[in-house]
């Protein structure tokens, strides 16, 4: 059976999926990156290989996410795509007439406006990480609540408390203040959900025309409290695809498929690379006053990729 591999290496999670010709998911994996993308990619690949039914042949591979270049050179990706395009492609696979995609991940959040199946506008959070998954994670562990229960707790609230959402520092001190005044935890959590949504719509979503169907994806879509807060703020139904947490990887797999259909061949090195040694190193180039910080990745003893240079000096491997 012919199938396509998609890898999304994000700041918080590394997601890997395999889809077949009929766009069915053969394997989907969501693991934590833990600041070690290479290890995450390698262990994710060997785990994925174990999940696949026998006889699956990978006919194309794509990578996306902030670690897309790293993942791309490691596995031999046919396409290395930015996460905005990947998420847009994936959303329209499930909801073909989608007009708005809300994506909230670990450290960034984005809005993608689509009309007639193509992206017409997009925005990503720029200078502020308030309202992203990492902050929710951090608050859940401060309150000692499993992150999985966060959303349900918010839904049980009857009277939301107002929390400042502009900045995580203000939000946290506001939450502590309200908690010491004796507000119920569920109300505070619900207030936090509303604050994050308000912050998202005022920053990332500012000036954008948000029309239905609205698709909500990324790790934070698991949080029912945030979904409900979006529905209240937008007065629109919010669709959450079943595979919401790995949509970037699905988009990458689909883009890989489109690419190999054009080229007729794949560069994918195979799951065997999970057994190869990889290491990285970095140095400061002294070639000019830029002093670029160059990072390089080795497969066995060979350099397979370099990043960080502002000129072509280090392009030759």
């Amino acid at each position, binding site marked *: 059976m012919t199938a396509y591999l998609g890898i999304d290496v994000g700041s918080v999670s590394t997601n890997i999926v395999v889809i077949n010709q009929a766009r069915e998911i053969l394997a989907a994996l969501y693991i934590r990156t833990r600041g070690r993308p290479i290890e995450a990619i390698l262990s994710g690949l060997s785990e994925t290989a174990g999940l696949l039914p026998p006889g699956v042949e990978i006919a194309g591979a794509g990578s996306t996410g902030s670690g897309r270049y790293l993942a791309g050179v490691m596995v031999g990706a046919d396409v290395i795509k930015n996460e905005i*395009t990947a998420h847009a492609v994936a959303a329209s696979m499930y909801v073909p007439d989608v007009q708005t995609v809300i994506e909230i991940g670990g450290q960034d959040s984005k809005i993608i406006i689509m009309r007639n199946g193509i992206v017409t*506008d997009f925005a990503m959070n720029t200078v502020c990480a308030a309202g992203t998954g990492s902050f929710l994670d951090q608050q859940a562990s401060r309150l000692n609540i499993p992150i999985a229960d966060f959303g349900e707790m918010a839904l049980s609230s009857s009277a939301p408390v107002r929390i400042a959402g502009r900045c995580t520092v203000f939000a946290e001190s506001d939450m502590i203040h309200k908690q010491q005044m004796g507000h119920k935890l569920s109300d505070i959590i619900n207030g936090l959900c509303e604050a994050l949504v308000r912050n998202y719509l005022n920053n990332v979503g*500012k000036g954008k025309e948000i029309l239905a169907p609205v698709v909500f994806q990324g790790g934070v879509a698991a949080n029912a409290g945030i979904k409900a807060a979006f529905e209240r703020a937008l007065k629109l139904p919010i669709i959450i695809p079943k595979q919401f947490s790995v949509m970037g990887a699905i988009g990458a797999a689909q883009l890989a498929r489109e690419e190999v259909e054009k080229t007729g061949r794949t560069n994918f090195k195979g799951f065997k690379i999970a057994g190869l040694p990889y290491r990285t190193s970095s140095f400061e180039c002294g070639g000019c006053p830029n002093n670029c910080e160059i990072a390089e990745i080795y497969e066995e003893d060979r350099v397979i990729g370099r990043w960080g240079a502002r000129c072509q000096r280090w392009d030759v491997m």
Partner: protein
Amino acid sequence: MPKVTFPRMGESWRTFKMLMNDLGNEVVVPPRPNKRTLDYGVRYAPEFACLPLKILMGTYVETCLEGAELIVTSGGSGPCRAGLYGQLHKKILNSIGFPVDIIVFEAPKNHPIDFLRKVNRLNASRLSYRAIWECIKRGWEKLKYLDDVEKLTHVVRPRELEKGATTRVYRRVLEWIDIAYTMSEIKEAGEAALQAIRSVPQDAERKVLKVGIVGEIYVLLEPASNLEIEETLGILGVEVHRSMFLTGWTQDNTVKETSETLSVKDAAAPYIPLCIGGHGQESVGHTVLYAKEGYDGVIQLAPFTCIPEIVARTILNRVSRVHNIPVLTFFLDEQTGKAGMTTRLEAFVDLMRRKKSQAGALHARPEVV
């Protein structure tokens, strides 16, 4: 005579170095903004000041360490903080132990006497006004060639056959223009430079997108402050047209406004009818004009906390909708990680390409380059 320095904006330093030397001054050439520049800038500038103030702060500290005693810079027009930066820089530099003085040139069309007095102060060789005029004319010629060559790289780079070839030739020809001194040498070097860039092997059939760049002058003119966005776009197959070059800006602020600026103001009038400081009005006007000229998109570059550009940013939402042109804004600060910008640029290029292929054929090469 005091050793003189000045802000660095792209390649224009080559002209100012020649001009200051001609007037009899020893020059400390400002280094290309780098990590050390940013470190000094962030350490000594107020936290909420904008990126141009911080980069210049760092540049001045670097040049002061090399012995600069007099800084020559330009003022600002309209309500923008840049107008007081000269004085602020001087106070900060004096307070951290550099006894430098600063000469701030204001627009001569508004302050002609002040302008001449300041020119006299820099005239260490006691040249006649006529001789000074000759120096300025040569400097102007050099500046024009520097701008023209840079503009040409924006057209050639997206079509180059070998990635990086244009930049390599560009770096080389800059030196030709740099060492040219007499009027005829400058013309000869400039023409040769243009010819060399034109001769970079190109793919005439390649379908390229056209993007206009608008925004605040410093982050537009100094590639080190905008993470070399124009070069990055060129490599992604995008021809860029920058709305501002030093020669154009100087013309508008010395003698009288060119017809080009006036039409930009006309285009902006329905949205911003008056000067709001900085280049906010121009950013809006240029975006309207780019849309009318059939560009595929516009990128706005703004220093973080820049009020005029924040105002323009909000209005550009509407301009983008009314004129059906995608607009992407970057607020620039001291971060040097390029990944976030690359992601957005790649997505923006995808967006424009899909929009265009849906609307019809991509246009091939324009007339003659």
